[in-house]
């Protein structure tokens, strides 16, 4: 195994060396970085040219200059990498350090949403193969495949952001919308649940009724201007989460797990007010992180104390329940911040921005206001990226699950008399996740460098913007810095994907004979 990894790493570094060498020389002959200076009429033109030449070592021919650049990169091994200077006088390392978090922020949430949504819809469509839900989701996923993101982005800006902001001026949902939403939710849930005609209509009416009344209630109570969940709703939702997670994870038949996760739901209510106190008195990321750690510790403790045998699945259930319920408390805090946020001068009741990564006018020391500002700016890009990328996960997880469901071991599991839940979750779902995991790893690495168009549409300055800047300004060091990060990540991710595959699927051996 170790030999395999080392050999692969060796090959990868040779590939990286070759492609970076070629890329460097290509980029060097693609344009003259001094061209605009040579044309300028600035009196100290010659001095500027000389200083830029000295700084970027332009007097060295590109093939030799490449090795100077490579020498700086090799500083990685002594903990002091040197990516060189960019044209505007700052170090490339500094620009990268600013850009990487922005890009991660931009794509992380979208990728996670796309994976979770795509896989769950894909699984439901596979279980309901050839149903109306399956056909409509197939159509939706093909449509998403075919959408150019720059086109979607303009539509979202117009119809989602601007109309939502206009709507907030007078937040009353028109009756037509309420009926439409209710019907949509009815059809959606009824087609997922499926079953006989009676269950279908029962599901349809209850889902439509619930959705309709929730929206009406929101509209009448002015919830959109002053949203919030409050301890009661949070507790009710946590109980729902406890039941749902227990059913999916170990089955409701496991009473110990159910009791443990219901205890976690109850603890959410008890800890609600202390959490509010911490949020208000000690705002910041560190207290939130500490509270998350405490939550998980308590969940492990509760899980252990409720279980005699088979501890790991029960602890897993309580942890998932606890994290989701605690997430609700955070969401509630953001909702409470919504009203003060809208009242600030920078926002002035138009909270969904169409461009940028933060409001420059928002000048506040408040941690929660600043965080909410980041969240609202993330909203549109996240929706756009999720729409574009979740279709692939739907298709892939559907195809894989259908293949797995046709395997002999699924038939064996059914023949043993296992419940349908166990067959799907334990036998089918886990085997479906093996190829999906490897795809996810590669995707995560790809997104770091991959959001060039999204960044340009939404006016973010991340890695894609740096790449473009380097390419258009013939800024070699900047371009190579971006390339180095993204290429290294992508080849490493491919290696990790191979290793993960062999770790998850014992039938696959890496490097054994070869």
């Amino acid at each position, binding site marked *: 195994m170790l030999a395999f990894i080392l050999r692969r790493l060796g*090959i990868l570094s040779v590939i990286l060396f070759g492609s970076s060498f070629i890329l460097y020389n290509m980029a060097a002959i693609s344009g003259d970085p001094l061209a605009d200076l040579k044309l300028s009429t600035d009196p100290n033109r010659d001095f500027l040219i000389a200083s830029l030449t000295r700084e970027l070592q332009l007097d060295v021919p590109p093939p030799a200059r490449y090795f100077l650049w490579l020498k700086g990169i090799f500083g990685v091994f002594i903990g002091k990498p040197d990516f060189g200077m960019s044209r505007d006088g700052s170090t490339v390392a500094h620009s990268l350090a600013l850009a990487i978090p922005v890009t991660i922020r931009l794509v992380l949430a979208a990728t996670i949403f796309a994976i979770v949504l795509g896989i769950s819809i894909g699984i439901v469509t596979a279980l309901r193969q050839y149903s109306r839900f399956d056909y409509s989701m197939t159509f939706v996923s093909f449509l998403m495949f075919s959408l150019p993101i720059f086109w979607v982005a303009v539509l979202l800006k117009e119809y989602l952001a601007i109309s939502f902001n206009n709507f907030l001026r007078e937040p009353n949902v028109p009756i037509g919308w309420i009926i439409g939403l209710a019907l949509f939710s009815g059809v959606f849930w009824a087609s997922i649940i499926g079953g006989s005609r009676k269950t279908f209509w029962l599901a349809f009416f209850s889902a439509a009724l619930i959705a309709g009344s929730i929206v009406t209630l929101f509209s009448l109570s002015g919830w959109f201007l002053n949203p919030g969940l409050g301890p009661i709703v949070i507790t009710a939702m946590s109980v729902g989460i406890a039941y749902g997670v227990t059913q999916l994870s170990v089955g409701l038949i496991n009473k110990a797990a159910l009791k443990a996760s219901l205890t976690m739901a109850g603890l959410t209510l008890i800890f609600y007010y202390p959490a509010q106190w911490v949020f208000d008195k000690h705002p910041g990321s560190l207290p939130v992180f500490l509270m998350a750690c405490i939550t998980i510790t308590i969940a492990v403790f509760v899980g252990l104390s409720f279980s005699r045998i088979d501890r790991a699945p029960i602890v897993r259930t309580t942890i998932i329940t606890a994290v989701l319920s605690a997430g609700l408390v955070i969401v509630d805090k953001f909702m409470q911040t919504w009203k003060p946020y809208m009242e600030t001068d920078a926002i002035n009741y138009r909270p969904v921005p169409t461009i940028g990564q933060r409001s420059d006018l928002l000048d506040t020391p408040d941690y929660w206001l600043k965080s909410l500002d980041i969240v609202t700016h993330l909203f549109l890009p996240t929706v756009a990226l999720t729409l574009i990328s979740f279709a692939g996960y739907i298709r892939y997880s559907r195809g894989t699950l259908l293949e797995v469901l046709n395997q002999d071991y699924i038939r064996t599991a059914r023949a043993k008399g296992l419940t349908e839940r166990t067959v799907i979750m334990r036998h089918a779902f886990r085997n479906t996740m093996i190829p999906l995991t490897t795809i996810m790893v590669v995707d995560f690495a790809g997104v770091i460098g991959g959001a060039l168009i999204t960044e340009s549409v939404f006016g973010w300055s991340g890695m894609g913007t740096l790449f473009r800047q380097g390419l258009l300004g013939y800024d070699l060091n900047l371009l190579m810095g971006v390339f180095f990060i993204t290429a290294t990540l992508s080849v490493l991710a491919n290696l990790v994907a191979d290793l993960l595959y062999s770790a998850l699927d014992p039938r696959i051996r890496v490097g054994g004979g070869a």
Partner: protein
Amino acid sequence: MIFRKKVSDNTEISSSGENAIANKEIEGLSQGQIVRRRFFRHRAAVFSLGVIIFIVVFVFTALDFRFLGIWHVKGWWKWSPEDLPELRFGDCPNDTVGCPTISLLPKALGGNGIGLGDHPFGQDDIGRDFFSLVMKGTQRSLSVMVVIGFLGGTIGTVVGSISGYYRGKIDAVLMRFTDFIITIPAIIIGSVVGYHFGNLGAMFLAFYLGLFAWTGLSRLVRGEFLTLREREFVDAARVAGASNRRIIFKHILPNAVGVIIVSVTLLLSGAILLETALSYIGFGVVEPDVSLGLLINKYQDSFTTRPWLFWYPGLFIISIALSINFIGDGLRDAFDPRQRRRISKKERQESASARKLAQAND
């Protein structure tokens, strides 16, 4: 809730009657006939095929066609992108200029009758007919797509089949070369060439993008060849003394052609999105040439005032990409031998009654 699933839904536990239906259907048919039959049963795919053919014919006959100055075919549309008709104003809503004249509502329903009018998609800032611009852009995007698909498909198939068939050192070298190509961003090559030779036009763009688009396909084909070459019929051919060339072309390639065709269609739909995206950010087709991505980029700011300048190019991109995706889905179903069609209730009943009849006769 999603687990309440009837066991009978599962095709695997289906009665042998379904297999009988499926087998009876393909009795005495060649592989090509089976594939064609399966494809034409996929309604969405056939419909999409019709849409694509319609779009191609519609778009390529709309404008004048010149070939090296010797061959000149007149298009059926009266304007060309070079014409500068007068900008229409006065009768447009919200005081805009150059609004579209297309009308799809018949007179009986209160519309202006079905007709294209003078400028069906409106006019751009300087009065050029937007319909002819969109036609030109679609021609560009379609031809770029075909070139990328052809080049990528050919290189990918050749590299993949050689490395999958010969394995060993050749495979290692070719696959490392593929990894190498994957790490190089294609845009860089474009900008190098653009700097030295100026703008070489859309066809050159398609050419170099095609040189970089084959990597995924080659991996797929390689995997397919690796499995197929271990099969008994390949052993039989080898024992019978067939040459490598014959085995590759006569025995393995026909079996791998399904995978190749399906992924080339997906490559095509990806190619049109890639071209429009590159043109949108300014690294693809550049002015004075026209491309759908370029048109969207140019007029996205006028979305609130003159939305038609934004809608029509986008609709063409989506309908092309969507149709190709559906065709690809139909082809996948047609080529996949494991894929079994959903047997309708009626057929199941018919087969059951036929079986009963047969038993009764015994």
